[in-house]
C-alpha cells in the first residue's frame, strides 16, 4: 500500500499490500478504459448542426460485442481478485500457526489492557505483566492473542500489522500475528464504542529479544499487582464462545 506511511511490520502485511496493488492494477485499467471511452463518446457524439443521432437498439451483434466481451472479461478478472483475496484472508484469519507466546488483549470503554505471560510464558500466573495502553512484542515470534471485551464492541486495529478484529463481549477470540519490524506503532479501536472512542488508542512497541528481556525484567515486580488485578474469568454461565479464527 503506502508503506512509507504505514510500515509493513507483520508477516502478513506484505500479502495484504500485494493484494492492494493487484486490485489497483486491475480495476485501475478498467476504470481508465471505461472513463476514457465514456468521455471520448461524449466528445465524438456532441450535438452538431445537421448531424442526426443514429437509431441503435443495442441488439445488433456487431455493437453488442462491445458490451459482451468486456462483460466476460470482468468475470474473469473477478475470479482472479477473489482467489487472491481469499488466499490473503486464509493466511490472516483462517489459519493459526503454533504460538511462541500467547497474550491477552482486553478492551473496555475506553482503554486497552494487555497481559504478557512473563518469563514463564504461561498466562494467569504470578509473573504475568499487565500494561494499560502499551503492548510490547518481540520481532520474529508468533503471537496468539486472546481478544476480549468487557462492555461493548471494540475493534483491535494495528495498521502496521494490517490486522483488525472486533472484540465481542462474552466471547474470546483467538487470532495471531508475527511482528517482523521493530518500531513504535499505533493501536486503534476501529469500532465506535461511545464518547471516548476517539481517545481509545494504545502504543505498540515491537522490539528485539534483548530489549524485550530488559522490559520484562523492569516490570518483573509488577507480578503481584498483575495477579491481583487479573480480570475475572469469562462468565461461565454463558455458552462457550466460539473462537472465530482457527477453530479447528
Amino acid at each position, binding site marked *: 500500500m*503506502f508503506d512509507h*506511511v*504505514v510500515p509493513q511490520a507483520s508477516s502478513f502485511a506484505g500479502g*495484504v499490500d500485494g*493484494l*492492494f496493488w493487484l486490485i489497483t492494477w486491475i*480495476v485501475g485499467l478498467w*476504470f481508465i478504459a*471505461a472513463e476514457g*471511452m*465514456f468521455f471520448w*463518446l*461524449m466528445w465524438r*457524439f456532441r*450535438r*452538431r448542426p445537421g448531424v*442526426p*443521432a*443514429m*437509431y*441503435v437498439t*443495442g441488439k445488433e451483434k456487431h455493437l453488442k460485442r462491445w*458490451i459482451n466481451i*468486456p462483460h466476460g472479461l*470482468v468475470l474473469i478478472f*473477478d475470479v482472479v*481478485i*477473489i482467489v487472491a*483475496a*481469499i488466499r*490473503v*484472508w*486464509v*493466511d490472516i*484469519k*483462517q489459519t493459526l500457526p503454533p504460538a511462541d507466546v500467547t497474550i491477552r488483549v482486553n478492551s473496555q*470503554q475506553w482503554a486497552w489492557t494487555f497481559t504478557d505471560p512473563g518469563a514463564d510464558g504461561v498466562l494467569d500466573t504470578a509473573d504475568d505483566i499487565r500494561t494499560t495502553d502499551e503492548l510490547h512484542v518481540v520481532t520474529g515470534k508468533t503471537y496468539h492473542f486472546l481478544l476480549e471485551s468487557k462492555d*461493548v*464492541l471494540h*475493534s483491535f*486495529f494495528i*495498521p502496521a500489522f*494490517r490486522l*483488525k*478484529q*472486533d472484540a*465481542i463481549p*462474552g466471547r474470546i*477470540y483467538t487470532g495471531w500475528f508475527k511482528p517482523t519490524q521493530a518500531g513504535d506503532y*499505533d493501536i*486503534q479501536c*476501529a469500532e*465506535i464504542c*461511545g*464518547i471516548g*472512542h*476517539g481517545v481509545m488508542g494504545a502504543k505498540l512497541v515491537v522490539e528485539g529479544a534483548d530489549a524485550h528481556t530488559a522490559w520484562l525484567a523492569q516490570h518483573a515486580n509488577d507480578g503481584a499487582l498483575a495477579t491481583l488485578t487479573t480480570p475475572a474469568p469469562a462468565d461461565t454461565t*454463558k455458552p462457550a464462545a466460539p473462537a*472465530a479464527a482457527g*477453530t479447528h
Partner: protein
Amino acid sequence: MAHATTHTVSHGGAHGGHHDEHWVKKYLWSTDHKIIAFQYLFTGMAMALVGAFMAYVFRMQLAFPGSNVPLWGVVSPGQYNALITNHGSIMIFWVAMPVLIAGFGNYLIPLMIGADDMVFPRINRLSYQLFLLSAIILLASLVVPNGGFGGAWTAYPPLSANRVYNTTPYGASLWVLAVAIEFVAFLLGGINFIVTAMNSRAKGMRAFDVPIVVWTIVIASILFMASVGPLIAGAVMLLFDQLAGTSFFNPNRGGDPILWQHLFWFFGHPEVYVVLLPAMGIVAEVMTVFARKKLFAYQTVIYTIIGTGVLSFFVWAHHQFVAGIDPRMANVFTVTTVLVSVPIAEMCFVYIATLYGGSIQFSTPMLWALAFLAEFLIGGVTGIYLGASGLDVFYHDTYFVVAHFHYTFFPIAIIAVFAGITFWFPKMFGRMMSDGWGKVHFWGTIIPFNAIFIPLFILGAYGEHRRIFDYHNFPHLATPEMQALRITATVALVVMLLFQPVFLWNFIRSIAAGPKADRNPWHANTLEWTADSPPPHGNWAELPECHRGPYEYSVEGRPTDFWPQDEQA
C-alpha cells in the same frame, strides 16, 4: 396526439371536484400523488440541509480540532458522535429514500404509466404522514436531555442497547423509534408503487414499454419490502432491550450482539441498491432524451437490475468480515460481493454505449446524468477493494470506506436527484429553470465533491479509522501531511455548500418567475410529457394510450427525432 387539450376538469373517479379547495386540503391533506411527491421532495430537501449542516460542523472539527466552529461552537466528543450518526441516518433514511423513491416514485409512476393517480391514494397520504412523524421524532431526538444518539447509523449493540454505555437514554430510543416508523412509511409507499405499476398502466403499455425509471423504482420497492422485515423486527428488539430490559443483544444474559448486525445488514445492503436503482433509472431517462438515442439494450438493463437486486440479498456479511463471524463464511461473501460487479459493470457499459451515435446536448440535467456515471464508476471500482476480504481486514472502518460509499451515495442522493429535479422541473412547476445558473451550480458542486473525497481515500489508505473526533490522540495519524488532507476536504466541503444557494435561488425564482414551459420542452417520448405542465388533478382529461416503447428517438424516416409513446402509428 391522442389526448384532447387538457384543462382543469376532473375526469371523475375517486378524486371528486377540483374547485377551490382549502389550501390545507389541497397541499397538506391531499391524496394527489403529485402533491404527496412534493411533500416528500421538500421534506427531503429540508432534511438534506440539516444533514449537510451536520457534515459542515464535524468536518470543521476534524480540520481544526477544538476550535470554535462558526454557527455551532466547540464540538464535544458526544456531540461529534451524535453529528456523524445523524448525518448518516438523515442522508440515507430522510433524504435519499424520500426524494428518490417516494418523491420521484410518487410523481413519476402515475404520469409515466398514464394513470390518473396511485391505486391507494389514502395509503399514500398516510405514508407521508408517518414519514413526517418519523422526521419530527428524529429531529426531536437531537435536542432531548443527554443529546442525540451517537452510536453510528449502524447502531451496533451493546452500545446502542444499553444507556450505561451510550449515555444517551432518550436520544437512542427516539432514534430507533424514528427509524422504525420511517420504514413503515416506505413499506406503505412501496406497496402502492408496485400495485400501481402492475395494474394501472395505460392501455397498450406492455411490460417492455415501461420506462426504465418506473422499472427501477418498482424493483427497488420489492427489494425494500423483502429486506426491511428483519430490520423492523430488529429495531423492535433493540427498543425492548433499551426500554424493557430484555436481552436480545445482551451477551451477559444469553443474547448475541452479532445478531443485530445480521438483521441490520440483511436490510442494509439491499438498501444500497434500493436507492441506487431509482438513481440509475433517472439517469437513463435523462441520457436518452439529451442524446436523442434509444437506450442501448433496454431488456439487458432490466435483467441487470433484477440480477443486481437478487444478488444484493447475498452480500450482507461483507460488512462483518472482521466482526467475529466464522472466517470460512467470509469466503462465500467475498465471492458474492465481487460478483455484484458483473451486473453493475454491465449496466454502466450499457449506459456508456447509449451515447454511441447520439447527438448529445450538454444541458444542465444531462451534465448531472453524465456526472453520475463518471463519479459512480469511482464508487464502483473502489468497492472491489472492500469486497476482497483479505484487503478489508485493513480497510474496514477506515476513511477508505467513508470515501467509497460517498462516491456511491453522493452520486445517488445528490447528483441523480439534481438530474431528476432539473429534468422534470418544467413538468412539476410549469416553468423552466435557468440553464446558465444550473451549470454554475453543477461545476460548483462536482469539483468540490471530488476534492472532498479523494483526500479521504488517501487518509484511509494511511490507516485513518472512522468516527474519531480528534486524531491528535493517535501519533501516526497526527502528521502535518494527514492534517493537510483533512483541511483540504473540509475547505472543499465549505466551497460546495456555498454553491448550494445558487441552486435554491434558481429553484425558487424559477417556480415563481421562470419562463413558461410548454408540455414537452425537451421533446421527450414518455407519457408524462403529454400532460399539461404542471398536470392538473387527475393528470389528463382523457387517459393516454401507449403505442410503443419509451425510447424511440431518432427513428429513421420520421419528420421529428422523437416519437411520443401515445402517438398513433
